């Protein structure tokens, strides 16, 4: 276990080096770097939402709200107040985490779709606060944010997010979260402090959503409230479910495929969303557990075979 973890990190560092070399050698042009950054941001968003939705089973659709907090707070720190980016990034993440703590509390009473609507409302309230605040530019948002994020930032950001979340999930704390998802009553009866773990999931998830927000704000030059409406939350949710709820590898792969698909379809703008939504529907119909929903990747490597799923009923 110990070894696998460190080998994984080593492999990703090699990947980082290769890409960095390609960038330095100007083999990858700016468009590819843009795409890599966007991929990274989306992966952080999806993986962090997966902790809340996929592992802990709390139906949250307010992730864009947390993202916006990270984006705005960090941008205020750097652009309006002139602090350094690392400090802005940290404050953005922490502010989002605090918001996660606050939204974590209603979840103690709300379940399922009611929780979903509450988180959605929370996300919208945050957006409306930005929209109605002229200090952060109102509808126009903050513009002229310096581009600080680069491949290194985004790579290590993704690495930290994935490693932290994976490390939580693959530990007794992660099992506790999953048990909350599986059966809250039984989890409590087994001594799991359900409240605590739900709040942890929200705080950690929000923290990384904030990080994604800060990275994207400091790459794409500007932010505006419309970028963080409920459609954005849905978009992130789609990454997670398409990849496979409760599977980090699946989430990452789902995010990459969808982001690239969306990019690729740019050339046929009229049909872009039509095709995108068709693919979404068809994937769900033919792989209802998500792309990697019932394949445990670690097992796949260990035993050279996917674990069998329960199956449903005999098909006629």
């Amino acid at each position, binding site marked *: 276990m110990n070894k696998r973890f460190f080998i994984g990190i080593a492999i990703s560092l090699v990947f980082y080096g290769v890409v960095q070399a390609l960038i330095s050698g100007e083999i990858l042009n700016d468009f590819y770097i843009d795409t890599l950054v966007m991929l990274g941001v989306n992966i952080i968003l999806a993986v962090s939402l997966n902790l809340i939705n996929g592992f802990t089973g709390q139906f949250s659709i307010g992730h864009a709200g947390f993202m916006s907090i990270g984006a705005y707070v960090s941008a205020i720190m750097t652009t309006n107040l002139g602090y350094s980016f690392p400090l802005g990034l940290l404050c953005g993440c922490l502010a989002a985490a605090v918001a996660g703590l606050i939204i974590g509390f209603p979840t103690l009473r709300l379940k399922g779709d009611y929780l979903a609507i509450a988180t959605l409302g929370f996300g919208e309230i945050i957006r409306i606060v930005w929209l109605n605040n002229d200090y952060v530019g109102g509808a126009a948002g903050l*513009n002229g944010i310096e581009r600080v994020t680069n491949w290194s930032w985004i790579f290590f950001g993704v690495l930290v997010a994935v490693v932290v979340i994976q490390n939580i999930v693959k530990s007794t704390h992660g099992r506790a979260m999953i048990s909350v998802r599986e059966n809250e009553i039984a989890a409590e009866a087994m001594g799991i402090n359900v409240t605590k773990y739900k709040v942890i999931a929200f705080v950690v998830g929000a923290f990384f959503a904030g990080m994604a927000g800060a990275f994207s704000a400091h*790459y794409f030059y500007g932010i505006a409230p419309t970028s963080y409406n409920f459609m954005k939350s849905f978009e992130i949710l789609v990454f997670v479910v398409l990849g496979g709820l409760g599977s980090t590898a699946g989430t990452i792969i789902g995010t990459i495929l969808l982001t690239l698909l969306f990019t690729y379809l740019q050339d046929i703008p009229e049909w872009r*969303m039509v095709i995108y939504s068709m693919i979404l529907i068809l994937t769900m119909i033919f792989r209802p557990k998500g792309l990697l929903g019932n394949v445990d990747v670690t097992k796949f490597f260990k035993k050279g075979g996917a674990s069998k799923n329960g199956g449903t009923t005999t098909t006629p």
Partner: protein
Amino acid sequence: GCGSKSTGSSSSNGDTIKIGANLELTGAVAAFGTSQLNGIKLAMEEINSAGGVNGKKLEVVSADNASKKDESTRTATKLITEDKVDVLMGAAISGDTFAAVEVANNKKIPMLTPSATNDDITFDHKKNKLNDYVFRACFIDSFQGKVMADFSADNLKAKNAVIYTDNSSDYSKGLAKSFKSEFESKGGKIVAEESYQTKDTDFKAVLTRIKTLNPEVIWVPGYYEEVGKIVKQAREMGITAAIEGGDGWDAPQLVDIAGKENLNNTFISNHYTSEDPDPKVRKFIDAFKAKYNTVPDAMAVLGYDATYMVADAVKRAGSTDKEKIKEALANTKNFEGVTGKISLDKNHDPVKAAVVLEYKDGKQTFNTKVQP
């Protein structure tokens, strides 16, 4: 129609001049982007059938930024690095345009936005810095607000006004701000400032309140979809005050939504009037109607003019050298567009006359012309 994709010639040294149109073709404001693209394409076809520019054909590569800021940055980058365009056009709204400004600056590619009105797009007032490569073809926010404030105070002799802004639109807020300061400086009084959001449909709550204030003028600088409903609901509630707006009103659908009679006693500032007998305007409107079977809105006509402005600059530059095109764009003088005679000032903003139009039985009628 289908997206005009790049036809294979990958470098700008070929026999085409590539224009990259970074537009909102899907997403929240797809209506703006698609309309603008129609204007751009019409202009391109006309220019090409008249022999192109400097012997080369214009080619428009359109790319969709999905009405998102981050996508807009990426789309602009893609047009430059992958499609190797010579000039960027777009985006339609200020937010998405902002996201591409730095890309144009960094890549040193001239960029002309047909319709982004935010004052800071060409000249960053906070940093007091000119964005060298960025130009626009439309009024800036502060101009239209001022024009209509003057019009209200001087022509309508209004003493008090209510401002009703689309708070989710940068454009609307810009116009509201300049209207307010100008109107107040002329001794007028703003008795209330209210706001709505894009895609709202019911305005009665606020209108009920406005009615009790009994203002002479209601300044509604928004887009036609909401404005049409505001005008309709206001009139149905018995509000008879003058209602005024900017070029965002200019769309044929406005009349359908608001209703002909309801539009009486409303005034807008615009670039031109579609009723203008000027042959240039007539030719454009006829061609547009023939191709798209509808009267152009403000977005379309701005896209059309902007394309001609680019063609004009490339012609004067005499090559596709980016620096030369940039210089030529900056030196645009007395360019004859459908929307009037355009000269760019030192901030890369057009100096052009505005017309104030009045709606009478659903028709725009010329009221006054205001020189900048």
